[in-house]
């Protein structure tokens, strides 16, 4: 059974739709990658799942989020608080700004344990030390009383993961957990997440714009562009034979996919600004396969191959060509 089911999720800033008709499915122990260029709406989708959009600026314009069979939109604020932190843990994109600069790391990890489980200060502290050990912080007994500025970027990211895991949630939303890190630390953090998945049976929604990260970690993949899903399916199929030109373009841009010494290819042009999306297929101004129909009609997400769906008028043609 699916742990998390998202259907038709739309997010708007006033009248402007920033994210439209997003579907996500996540089973227990599964790692789902959400990829897309900067500004495609990944972070606000994550925050919408937790009902944590800045409510004076953004709101959920439609759709449903179902966690273990419960519609989160129907929960009142008090019930929703028992979901946040307890059932869904969240790792934010930028650990430096998402940790309180004047509170000890240990207290930041322990406070949800104290609030949700009514643990004593001592018990909660013990849990914080244990969590810091789990995420691979050396000398956790001492580090538990450190402040965020005393940690390196990689350690802050680990501390952030410890914060998210404090109340043993079953679902982890990780918004670009490795973007701010150098390559070796990045690999360590990804290994840590996979290890936690194996040991704790976590489901992980892993947001990234790095397909290399996806290749290493994910089971399935959802590709977003300009607030809409372009393609969705098992990772292996998507990476081997993308059904959407955007996925294909992203793949070509990965370092390592080009021949050594050749110039790194980039997708020509810029992604559209939120709310100023082009008519028809949103990718058409940058698409190498653009045809008349792409400018006029928006392609629906339709089955491309097996469990895979893609939103392109030429999906079948692409497949035929490859």
């Amino acid at each position, binding site marked *: 059974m699916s742990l998390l089911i998202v259907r038709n999720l739309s997010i708007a800033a006033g009248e402007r739709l920033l994210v439209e008709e997003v579907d996500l499915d996540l089973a227990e122990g599964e790692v789902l990658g959400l990829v897309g260029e900067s500004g495609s709406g990944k972070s606000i989708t994550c*925050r919408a799942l*937790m009902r*944590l959009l*800045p409510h004076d600026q953004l709101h959920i314009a439609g759709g449903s989020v179902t966690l273990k069979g419960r519609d989160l939109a129907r929960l009142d604020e008090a019930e929703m*608080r*028992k*979901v*946040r*932190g*307890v059932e869904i843990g*969240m790792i*934010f994109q*930028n650990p430096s*700004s*998402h*940790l*309180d*600069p*004047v*509170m000890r790391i240990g207290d930041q990890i322990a*406070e*949800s344990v104290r*609030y*949700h489980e009514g643990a004593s200060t001592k018990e909660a502290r013990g849990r914080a030390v244990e969590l810091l050990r789990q995420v691979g912080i050396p000398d956790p007994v001492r580090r538990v009383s450190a*402040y965020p*500025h005393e940690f390196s970027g990689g350690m802050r990211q680990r501390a*952030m993961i410890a*914060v998210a895991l*404090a*109340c043993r949630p079953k679902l982890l939303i990780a918004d670009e957990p490795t973007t701010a890190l150098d390559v070796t630390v990045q690999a360590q953090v990804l290994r840590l997440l996979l290890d936690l998945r194996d040991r704790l049976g976590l489901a992980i929604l892993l947001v990234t714009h790095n397909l290399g990260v996806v290749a290493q970690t994910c089971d399935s993949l959802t590709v977003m562009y300009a607030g809409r899903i372009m393609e969705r399916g098992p990772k292996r199929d998507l990476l081997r034979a993308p059904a959407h030109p955007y996925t294909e373009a992203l793949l070509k841009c990965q370092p390592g996919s080009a021949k050594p010494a050749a110039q790194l290819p980039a997708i020509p042009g810029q992604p559209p600004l939120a709310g100023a999306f082009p008519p028809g297929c949103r990718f058409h101004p940058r698409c190498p396969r653009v045809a008349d129909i792409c400018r006029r009609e928006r392609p629906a997400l339709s089955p491309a191959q097996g469990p895979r769906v893609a939103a392109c008028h030429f999906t079948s043609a692409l497949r035929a060509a490859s």
Partner: protein
Amino acid sequence: MHRYAFILTRPLQLIPVLFGISVLCFFLVKSIPGDPVRLLLGTKSTPEAVARIRAQYGLDEPLLTQYIYFLKNLSAGEMGHSLLYKMPVLPLIAERVVPTLMLVVGSVLLTLLIAVPLASLAALKRGTATDHAIRGFTTAGLGFPAFWLGIMLIIVFSVKLGLFPVAGFGESWLSKLHHMVLPCLTVALALSAIVTRNLRASMIAELASDHATAARAKGLPESWVFRRHVLPNSLIPTINLLAINVGWLIGGSVVVETVFSLPGMGQLLVRAIFTRDYMVVQGVTLVFACATVVLNFVADLLTVAADPRVKI
């Protein structure tokens, strides 16, 4: 180096500062026009009498010699004699310290007591009628001069309601406290207007900060997020704001002390200036300057305690 090491090193840095203050005090007073001896003896004094008094107080020596005398005496805790009160300056000041100290400390406490709840309320209920009402209060607090506020408070609470004494300073500590309520409130109303505005702005920024969002993502209720994350972070800039204003308050204590006839240092200073009572002006200025230095030290101490990132 340890974050609190400045507690030990700061006094050493103070020596040149204090030296500078002493030079400034000394020459500032000397540059005030008017002859203190004539003022003391009246216009009909004989030249002989004037010369005698001048010699007695060393006023006929060159300025540099006078300054060296001044330093020498100062290092012995001797601040000279008041021409007007006919007594040593140090005990004269000591008598006046208590009301001013009570005024400053009481005003700061009262300011926090007013500003923190008001700013919290305004920030949490941003854009509502409550917020507008509080903005109205702060605008009024900034707009009305302190002496007017003081007089209004006297009319309402002392004359009409009879709750507090009109003026003066009590004998027992309880009576002293009773006398201090209205003066402190006068200062606190003006000061809390500034503090409330700044605190509200930093609270609003902290409420929208990433780390507050992260705290909400832990499922903590808004009250917890506010108390544990928003409040401590937004109070940090307030420490310095308060320190600056208290420095100003020490110098400005004279207005409130006059309105409430408080026998404090501000009053002493003003009377000394009008009567060219050199030694008293010097002494009080020195004490005010030192108080400001101590105040900065306390502010640094509080900042270091409140913000683990700060190194001084």
